[in-house]
């Protein structure tokens, strides 16, 4: 749960504190106000001065669309300081015609009967039909005539500019000003460009096209909700108005739209058309169902003030469906249980009322406090049935749906930092992850062997995903051939697949170092690799390590470096693997194609492949312009972890002398040391402590295709001093075994 301020999904907006002060008489200065708002969750990111005005850059959380305007922020201030929030009451002249009709509710098809009735009148207002009451729950409108489109008053121009918008004309600015003031998106149509004398809110028809205000032709689908006139769509509901019906300098008559569109409908449209507008942003997050008349009137008032003209008829308010929400319970016991402190009932009610909630306590407020509880308790919810409030949530708080949401309102206005810090008692036990000691051991060994820990990017290009697929994948997956796992929306082509191996990342990092002149590199990474297995996928933990350059560097103490070779890597691998219990550990040359075929190996522990390692194939190295030998290793930790960690075992150190014997043999190249060792181990000579090669020689003296090897055996018994004849007999057995492999004994 890390909230990142991402520019793409910003809820950044500006607030002008002097505008707030029109709605609440705030006693503190702008800076203090910013701090207090931030403490209550209305985050002021920065406070700036511009043209003599203080400007707040806000960073609001996505749930608080109600506070994305000046009146909403003022309401928060009113709750914080417990001061009155002034009402917004547009002053409009009495309309020339007609009585004020009641709001119209007419079921799924909401048609204003009032408008119908007026349809024939000369100055008739507009009939509004909501064909889709799910997508549009309310559509409020006003008709204005004889307006004069022109410049806006200075105050409006200045405020819009401070908020980062350009002034367009007095009608467009009025809707823009209102959205910043009240938060509700409205739209103004050129009434004379609406054909058919009606406005219909409906789903678009297949094949309909709407040119939106930004000049783009939008191909509509039947899922799009549009505002249409009698003939054509004129606006994408809640997203953007149409180009052809917009207010221009020549506009005389205006229709103001103030509607409530359903969040998901707007969101899916905005997504489908790749449009993210101020209006869609607000509707998506849940606009205020109750404010449409006020917003409509406020826009009308602003237009009247700046563009003149007159109202034609009364406000038309068409309700497709009512958005009613049941009151929420608020139990005093829940405050204590969740927040950890008691809040006095008066305080609770005060906070909620200032935020626009209405509360009905079930306690009888007129009842005198009982004599036995004349203390602070009186202030609380009290006992029995009276410890419960019924809370009506205002229409602008769609985010408040449950009792717990009310608790958050209380907590944030009370002030998070006014809660004491406590530590909970705990009755449970502590459990360790089963692989944790193994992970820790592997890491400890790699660090001790001198490898630096690295983290590489999890994504690789397709070609690498394929190339390195078998380096980790095993034949043990009988069900489906493993494939790379593709990302649907990758960052770029180079990151189209999930890594199938840790090797590409390590090779890249080695290359990164070599390109910067660091020639001795040892890195390891432990992490997940990914595969697609038919319909399933697999995620497994691997260890990768890589080395290049010198095992021991040249220095003032050493004229020649010791280069890192296959056998350094093998030694490191053996050290690592020996940390795990096993019966057998064998190395063979069955390796994936990314390795040098003659300088790489597979490690098989108790019959399962647990690692592959060796020199990176020179061709792959050349493709990556790696000019020195690079060694890479990958360990399948998931399989290695099938084995227990090795438990230390103690064996008494023999008191009896050890006897060494050397055997010098010549073998064919085809006879590997592994075969020699295995052959001797078959003898099961109990007192052979070790059997190891001491020297290997290839060259003229032994001839092509052959090599000589000096083998050293060490005999020692726990119980007694070994007799010469015993050792001689074992030596004879060993020689016989080696001769059976085709070896020629040169000296003993």
């Amino acid at each position, binding site marked *: *749960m*890390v*909230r990142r301020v*991402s520019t793409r*999904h910003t809820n950044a907006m500006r607030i002008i504190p002097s505008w707030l002060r029109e709605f609440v008489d705030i006693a503190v200065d702008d800076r203090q106000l910013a701090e207090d708002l*931030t403490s209550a969750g209305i985050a002021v990111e920065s406070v700036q001065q511009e043209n003599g005005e203080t400007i707040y850059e806000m960073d609001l959380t996505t749930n*608080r669309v109600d506070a994305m305007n000046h009146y909403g922020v003022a309401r928060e201030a009113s709750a914080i300081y417990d001061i009155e929030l002034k009402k917004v009451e547009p002053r409009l002249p009495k309309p020339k015609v007609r009585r004020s009709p009641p709001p119209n509710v007419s079921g799924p098809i909401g048609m204003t009967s009032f408008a119908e009735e007026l349809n024939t009148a000369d100055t008739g207002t507009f009939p509004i039909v909501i064909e889709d009451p799910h997508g549009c729950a309310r559509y409020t409108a006003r008709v204005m005539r004889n307006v004069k489109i022109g410049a806006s008053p200075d105050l409006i121009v200045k405020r819009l500019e401070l908020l980062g918008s350009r002034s367009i004309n007095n009608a467009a600015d009025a809707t823009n000003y209102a959205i910043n003031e009240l938060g509700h998106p409205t739209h103004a149509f050129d009434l004379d460009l609406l054909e058919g004398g009606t406005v219909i809110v409906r789903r678009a028809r297949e094949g309909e096209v709407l040119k939106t205000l930004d000049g783009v032709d939008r191909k509509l689908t039947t899922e799009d909700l549009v505002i249409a006139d009698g003939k054509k769509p004129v606006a994408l509901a809640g997203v953007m108005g149409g180009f052809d019906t917009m207010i221009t300098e020549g506009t005389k008559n205006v229709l103001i739209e103030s509607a409530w569109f359903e969040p*998901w409908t707007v*969101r*899916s449209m905005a997504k489908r058309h790749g449009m993210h507008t101020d209006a869609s942003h607000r509707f998506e997050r849940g606009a205020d169902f109750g404010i449409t008349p006020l917003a409509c009137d406020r826009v009308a008032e602003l237009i009247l003030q700046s563009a003149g003209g007159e109202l034609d008829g009364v406000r038309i308010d068409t309700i497709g469906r009512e958005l009613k929400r049941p009151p929420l319970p608020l139990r005093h016991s829940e405050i*204590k*249980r*969740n*927040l950890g402190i008691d809040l006095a009932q008066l305080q609770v009610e005060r906070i909620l009322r200032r935020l626009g909630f209405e509360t009905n306590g079930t306690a009888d407020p007129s009842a005198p406090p009982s004599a036995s509880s004349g203390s602070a308790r009186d202030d609380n919810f009290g006992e029995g049935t009276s410890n419960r409030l019924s809370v009506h949530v205002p229409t602008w708080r769609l985010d408040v749906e*449950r009792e*717990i*949401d009310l*608790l*958050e309102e209380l*907590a*944030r206005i009370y002030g*998070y*930092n006014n809660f004491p*810090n*406590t*530590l*909970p008692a*705990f*009755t*449970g036990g*502590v459990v*360790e*992850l089963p692989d944790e000691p193994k992970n820790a051991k592997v890491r400890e060994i790699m*660090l001790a*062997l*001198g490898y*630096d*820990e690295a*983290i590489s990017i*999890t*994504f690789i290009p397709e070609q690498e995903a394929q190339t390195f697929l078998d380096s980790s994948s095993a034949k043990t997956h009988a069900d489906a051939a493993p494939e790379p*796992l*593709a*990302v*649907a*929306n990758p*960052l770029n082509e180079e990151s189209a697949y*999930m890594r199938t191996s840790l090797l590409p990342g390590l090779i890249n*990092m*080695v290359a990164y170092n070599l390109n*910067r002149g*660091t020639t001795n590199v*040892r*890195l390891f990474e432990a*992490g*997940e690799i*990914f595969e697609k297995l038919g319909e399933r*996928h697999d*995620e497994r933990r691997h260890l990768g390590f890589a080395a290049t350059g010198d095992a021991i560097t040249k220095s003032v*103490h050493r004229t020649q470096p010791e280069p890192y070779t296959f056998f350094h890597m093998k030694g490191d691998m053996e050290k690592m693997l020996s940390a795990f219990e096993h019966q057998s550990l064998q190395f063979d040359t069955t390796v994936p194609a990314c390795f040098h075929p003659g300088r790489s190996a597979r490690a098989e522990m108790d019959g399962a492949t647990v690692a592959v390692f060796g020199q990176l194939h020179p061709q792959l190295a050349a493709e990556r312009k790696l000019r020195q030998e690079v060694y890479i290793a990958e360990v399948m930790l998931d399989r290695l972890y099938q084995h227990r960690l090795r438990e230390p075992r103690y064996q008494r150190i023999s008191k009896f002398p050890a006897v060494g014997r050397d055997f010098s043999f010549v073998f064919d190249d085809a006879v590997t040391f592994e075969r020699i060792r295995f052959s001797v181990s078959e003898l099961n000579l109990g007192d052979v402590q070790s059997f190891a090669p001491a020297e290997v020689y290839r060259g003229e003296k032994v001839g092509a295709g052959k090599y000589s090897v000096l083998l050293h055996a060490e005999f020692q018994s726990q119980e007694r001093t070994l007799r010469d004849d015993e050792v001689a007999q074992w030596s004879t057995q060993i020689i016989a075994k080696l001769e059976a492999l085709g070896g020629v004994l040169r000296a003993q």
Partner: protein
Amino acid sequence: MNLKTNAMYSVPKLEDYSPDGLERARNEFLSALDTDVLNATTEEEWKAARDRWMSRKSGLLSQINDTWLKSSPPEHRRNTGQLVNELKEIVTGQFSQTPDAILGRTKNQALAAERLDISLPGIQRAIGVKHPVLRVMDEIVAVFKAMGYSVGEGPEVETDYYNFESLNFPPNHPARDTQDTLFIAGQERKPARERLLLRTHTSPVQIRTMEKQAPPLRIVIPGKVHRNDPLDATHSPLFHQVEGLAVDTNITFCDLKGTLDHAMKALFGSSVKTRFYPSFFPFTEPSADMQVSCIFCGGKGCRTCKFSGWIELLGCGMVDPNVFEFVKDNGYDSSKISGFAFGMGVERIALLKYGVEGIQLFYEGDVRFLEQFS
């Protein structure tokens, strides 16, 4: 070799075997011995002197035997014999052991010849270095382990259900947009909640753990997460989080604050202060952002804290009852239990802690960078 004095001494023929004469010969002999012993300053000289005096064939001791005793008149033979024996004992005693002074001097000279310039650099064996991000992650996890938290883990490729739905992000919810999710290809045929994606936070492990384990519960979840953000100095497609979750019958908002305050003091020192601001996460209610007093300037204001004295470090909150609803069958009844959760970005803390200027440095594998964190 300084044998000047000795060269002057050779065993004289004895003319006078009288007691006085023997006495004189004795003194001359011993005086020469003393001189030789004193002049031998090295082990070699000491050995040479010993040979001169004690060599069986031609040593000065043999000489007095031959020269004095054998040619003594019979009447003085007894005295002469006594004298020779006495001198033999003295000389043998004298040379029986190399004096410490000589030994010490010799050894010191030999050792002095083996002297090294100890100011030359040492031969260092490489020890690998822990990655700075994982190092910080370990430190955070250790703090919570010490507070009785178990460690939890979960997969990096997650389903929509665990990453979003069960964390109270309904399908199509705007809060999903802020997650910049990377999706796995080819999921269209699956039901929405089974579709695979790369987890955008470690929070899915909250649900996974609660499915497995009934309350009470205290877990800390370190892990890797991915988002659709190209790599640059401030963004990364991968980063690490440490998530925490505590659920019990008695967990309150005050406990959340107290736990995190305690943890921050354990991580950054006891003088660190915390403060909390309301925030929004779909899976917590109430939600909060936590700030710590700047760990560099102590709250006075510096570049790191943008002169505010505070650094935003993590998100947290009380577990939303809707989340418990998904694991209700495992004993998570929100009318009886409550819990808190928190999550922090490890890279962010590592960047702050070490003053690293770009997040991409963590993933380049540059050993010049990595080896600074030893």
